[in-house]
């Protein structure tokens, strides 16, 4: 009771819970699930963009894309490290990803069909991620909050790069412009769905708010994202594929069409366009690398023995 009281006080005071502090078991579990899912998303998220590294249309773009995908691996690593402070190992988490017990963000189950998709992912998907993650920099769990600060800094860099790709395309040849518009058409609604189900249907949401893991509801964040995109789409000279999108004077926000939440549920369940490929790719990388990891372990053990 004392411990719970102390925990509540810290959270209420907007201070940080640290790994060695007592915390409710449900808080720990919620955090593990959320951080792990976030880490898995970074790792799986390397695939759709990685798909275009070999074909990047200029060496400069190839370098930027390589660096970006590398950053995602880095994010994955420090998020796994943050999760490990909660008493679970990265190996366990990776196992749970591989055997499907834990999820990653459904957005990565959509294919990157053209180069413009790399731009759209940067602009929309990283944009949505930032809107989601900026509040997490103030999350009540210290290691997660600190990881998010680092992640957000790089994500906003990525978002700008995506914007720049689309801007170049939309001001290029007619084929390039069409490619950019097609990508925005395909990624818009899946990006809106990244904020999760509408508030009414969102489980766990309320408790996470109370624990100050979450600071805003799904719908609040989604609205913020829409408002941000509308303005940027104007600069990009690209159309957001929503005929009902309009400024609501009274609300001081945009009205917009909700994404297809049934589709979101299907994709989460495993029936998205690329779920199989993404998982298969990850599993193969993991199993193809098993002999390498085993060799590294064996070598380290030999050296440790010789050192004694």
């Amino acid at each position, binding site marked *: 009771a004392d411990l719970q009281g102390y925990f509540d006080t810290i959270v209420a005071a907007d201070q940080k819970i640290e790994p060695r502090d007592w915390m409710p078991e449900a808080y720990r579990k919620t955090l593990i699930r959320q951080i792990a899912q976030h880490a898995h998303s970074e*790792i799986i998220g390397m695939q759709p963009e990685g798909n275009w590294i070999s074909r990047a*249309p*200029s060496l400069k773009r190839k*370098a930027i894309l390589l660096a970006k995908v*590398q950053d995602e691996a880095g994010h994955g690593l420090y998020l796994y490290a943050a999760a490990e402070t909660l008493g679970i190992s990265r190996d366990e988490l990776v196992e749970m990803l591989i055997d499907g017990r834990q999820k990653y963000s459904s957005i990565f189950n959509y294919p990157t069909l053209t180069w413009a998709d790399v731009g759209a992912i940067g602009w929309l998907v990283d944009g949505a991620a930032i809107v989601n993650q900026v509040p997490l920099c103030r999350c009540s769990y210290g290691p997660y909050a600190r990881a998010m600060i680092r992640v957000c800094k790089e994500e906003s860099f990525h978002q700008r790069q995506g914007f720049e790709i689309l801007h170049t395309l939309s001001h290029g040849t007619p084929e390039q412009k069409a490619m950019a518009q097609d990508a925005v058409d395909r990624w818009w609604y899946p990006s809106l769905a990244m904020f999760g189900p509408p508030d009414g249907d969102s489980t766990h949401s309320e408790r996470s708010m109370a624990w100050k893991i979450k600071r805003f509801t799904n719908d609040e964040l989604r609205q913020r994202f829409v408002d941000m995109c509308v303005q940027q789409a104007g600069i990009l000279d690209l159309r957001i594929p929503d005929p009902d999108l309009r400024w609501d004077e009274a609300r001081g926000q945009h009205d917009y069409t909700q994404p297809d939440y049934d589709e979101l549920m299907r994709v989460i369940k495993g029936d998205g366009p690329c779920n199989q490929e993404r998982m298969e790719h990850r599993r193969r990388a993991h199993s193809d690398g098993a002999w390498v990891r*085993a060799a590294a372990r064996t070598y380290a053990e030999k050296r440790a023995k010789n050192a004694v």
Partner: protein
Amino acid sequence: MSHVGYVLGLADDALVAAQRLGEWCSRAPEMEEDIALANIALDQLGVARMLLTYAGELEGAGRTEDDLAYLRSAHEFRNVRLVELDNGDFAVTMAKLLFLSVYQRLLYDRSIGVGDERVAAVAAKARKESAYHVDHSSRWVVRLGDGTEESNERMQAAVDLVWPYTDQLFEVDPDVHALSVAGVIVDPSTLRPAWLAAVDAVLAEATLTRPLDSDSSVVRRGEHTEALAKLLAEMQVLHRAHPGARW
């Protein structure tokens, strides 16, 4: 080989190596290795860009780095065959990287003070990166060679597979030799003893056997395997599909 040809050779080695390393992205045996391989790919790509730009200037026909990277066909590439070989398993990739990066480190080290100031400047920047590539690949070759029975077998097979392609790094070319005597650039054929000593040390620590040298005549730069045209087909497809477009 002309001066431009020489610079293109260094550039294309780095470019094709970067392309192959980039293929590992999201496929590495460990997440740390995904990061490391991307890093090395980025280093190689950086060197390639500087040298391609310089080669375009030397050539004087107004070709940019992208023109040279995307609009030449396989027989115009000057890279050694070593870098274009398929990635194979992780052991093959590490064997390729060890052999290449030991060569590049020696070449860059000795190019610091050469008369070609552009090459010297690139070398000054690249030598530190190169030392890291040598270190990284050496560690893996040792770990795999002296790891499990399986990893030892794979690493030895990889060394055996890649070894015959290392000859080409040390091609003897009279023009390059003349430029080297004039102090303009470094003649790669002079690097062989130092390269062999460095590689031998790593192989020994890795408990691996160095393959016998073949008595085959050296294949000249510009001669390629079947792999290069396929690599370029993928690398160039988008750029070529939109002639003249900006990206």
